[in-house]
């Protein structure tokens, strides 16, 4: 017993280091993929409030750009609304509710914390469960997509940015519908990588990449970016395609959280089919 005590006293520095490091690494490993909601919710309210007051100040510096974006989007929406069309045939704009079922709802939120300089980046929004935000919802901006909600607390939401090691977005090239996967290689926040496009497909620089809508999270046809370059590594059958993100992740301010009204139905259908397949 005395020896054990003596041992502990003698090596207390090393032992304490091992213990603390083990605690830290356990915390880290348990939260690596989707951030553990428990840890987050405990901290969310304190840090959330802190970031809200900080971004209340910094928000002023972005006002001009935010206004610009909003007015651009307004003009686009105005163009699409019935008022800007000449109505020769009244039937054209008659909407039958059984034909046009609403699939997506949009909740406006403000970014109160954001980073672009880490390998795995996350965004915090100033709205949470209270406003109808749930896990696995898409977060988009007028320019394109920003991320996916990974955890929510009462008043805040934690979003996995597209700038993340775990990002896998089902995408397609707009002109020929070829399907691929978007990932981020961690170097430049303005450049993503499109993979899984077979090498026989003809590409050109400037081609538009959009979401495929196959994931049930992101609506189809949202802008991801434009192709900057493409190459086939030796011995591979798929392209590696660096592309410029349409979103400037460094200046995110207002975003929309997309609620898919049919996600549950789609997931259920998929689940039952998979269960039948397993039998």
């Amino acid at each position, binding site marked *: 017993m005395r020896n054990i005590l003596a041992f502990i006293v003698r090596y207390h520095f090393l032992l304490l280091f091992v213990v603390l490091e083990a605690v830290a690494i*356990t915390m880290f490993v348990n939260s690596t993929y989707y951030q553990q909601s428990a840890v987050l919710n405990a901290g969310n309210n304190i*840090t959330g409030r802190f970031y809200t007051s900080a971004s209340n100040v910094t928000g002023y510096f972005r006002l001009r750009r935010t206004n610009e974006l909003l007015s651009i989007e307004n003009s686009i929406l105005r163009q699409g609304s019935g008022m800007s069309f000449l109505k020769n045939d009244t039937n054209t704009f008659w909407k039958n509710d059984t034909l046009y079922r609403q699939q997506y709802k949009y909740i406006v939120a403000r970014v109160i914390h954001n980073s672009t300089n880490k390998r795995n980046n996350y965004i915090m929004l100033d709205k949470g469960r209270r406003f109808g935000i749930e896990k696995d919802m898409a977060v988009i901006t007028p320019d394109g997509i920003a991320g996916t909600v990974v955890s929510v607390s009462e008043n805040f939401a934690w979003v996995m940015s597209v700038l993340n090691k775990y990002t896998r977005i089902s995408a397609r090239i707009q002109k020929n519908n070829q399907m691929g996967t978007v990932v981020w290689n961690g170097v430049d926040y303005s450049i993503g990588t499109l993979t899984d496009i077979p090498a026989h497909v003809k590409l050109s620089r400037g081609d538009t990449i959009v979401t495929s809508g196959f994931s049930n999270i992101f609506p189809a046809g949202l802008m991801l970016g434009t192709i900057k370059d493409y190459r086939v590594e030796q011995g591979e059958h798929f392209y590696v395609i660096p592309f410029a993100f349409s979103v400037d992740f460094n200046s995110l301010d207002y975003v929309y959280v997309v609620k898919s009204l049919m996600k549950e139905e789609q997931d259920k259908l998929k689940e039952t089919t998979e269960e039948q397949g397993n039998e």
Partner: protein
Amino acid sequence: MNRVVFQNVIRFVLLLLLQVLLFNKINLYGYLNPFVYILFILLLPFETPGWLLLALSFITGLTVDLFSGTPGLHTAATVFAGFARPAIIRLVGKHDESDSSKFPTIRDMGLKWFVSYASIVVFLHHAALNYLDVFSFTEFFRTLLRVIVSSLFTVLFVILIEYIFVSHREKR
């Protein structure tokens, strides 16, 4: 002694605010992310007992984690840096143990001593942090570049902050 404690508490708060509000937002092509909060660990008095050093490292890392939403990441890296600190002080150069009025600062130990001491601690901290964050060695060299660039800037900022603090103290 009380003055030293008070000084360190103030330093802790200021450095964390600086880190969270300013340095976490700095970015240069994805490579640059200085973590100046490590200066708090660098500037703890020489005679800080080992257990306190580790405990303070743990708390510092945990606080930064809370604000970055990365539970355990900064904690692990900072505890590692705290653990390495005594060995690095021994490695970089002895200081007179009888002279307890000296602190590991530029003013007391000189620029050359401080730069070599800070560089090693910062490099170890950034290496632990970045490799843990990526959690694989598949991007080894890209991560190494990130570690080196970030370390350089952290050391640079740490020295700048040091000079600002020192000049203030001398004026008083």
